């Protein structure tokens, strides 16, 4: 209950007092104590990020994760023409998905779903994002744990300062 309130509460502190009306639980007292001390112990920032494919190593890791063929760098034929980049062959897709790593631009021809299911591409983007987060976190020396949520989302928890 408390967690839900914090997650959706994005208003300034003038509305924060409403939290206190929920009860006198130890969790609320902890929040108020942290506020009083100026040290926040709970959520501070939430944001949403749209994934861009910019890391060849993470693309390879995503392919491994989904048991796809290894990505291939070079020139590749799409219906719309030839494009150069790192190509991934998705299951049941007629043409490959080609990533231009320097720009993050993704090229593909799915003909509105007739030549490839967009959900399969989304699944690849999910795998890429998860692997990219793990690579970057470990590079910084943080510990990462992964779990699967009921709706198919992947949850990654980074312990800042932990050993990789």
């Amino acid at each position: 209950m408390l967690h839900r309130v914090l997650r959706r509460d994005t208003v300034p502190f003038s509305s924060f007092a409403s939290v206190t009306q929920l009860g006198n639980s130890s969790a609320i007292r902890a929040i108020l104590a942290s506020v009083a001390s100026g040290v926040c112990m709970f959520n501070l920032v939430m944001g949403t990020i749209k994934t861009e494919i910019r890391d060849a190593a993470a693309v390879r890791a995503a392919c491994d994760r989904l048991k796809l063929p290894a990505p291939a760098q070079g020139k590749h034929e799409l219906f719309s023409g030839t494009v150069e980049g790192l190509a991934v062959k998705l299951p049941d897709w007629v043409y490959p998905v080609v990533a231009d790593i320097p720009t993050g631009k993704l090229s593909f021809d799915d003909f509105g779903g007739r030549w490839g299911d967009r959900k399969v591409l989304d699944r690849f983007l999910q795998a890429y994002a998860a692997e990219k987060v793990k690579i970057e976190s470990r590079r910084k020396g943080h510990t990462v744990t992964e779990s699967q949520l009921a709706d198919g989302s992947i949850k990654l928890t980074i312990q800042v300062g932990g050993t990789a």
Partner: protein
Amino acid sequence: MNKTIEIIVTVKGETSVQTRGFTGSSCRDASKFIEQALGQRLDEQLTAEFHQVAITEQQQQQRT
């Protein structure tokens, strides 16, 4: 309290980030490497605690 960053990657490949255990605006710095690694940030929501910490910091500065 441990400093953690929680990341949810949806089935559509979009990523949401939450920080916990950081003081003031340091949470932004802590999660910046995730944003830089993944792509474009679509939105950002500052929670009530973020604003409160900012207010507390302002009050402390006014006292000194």
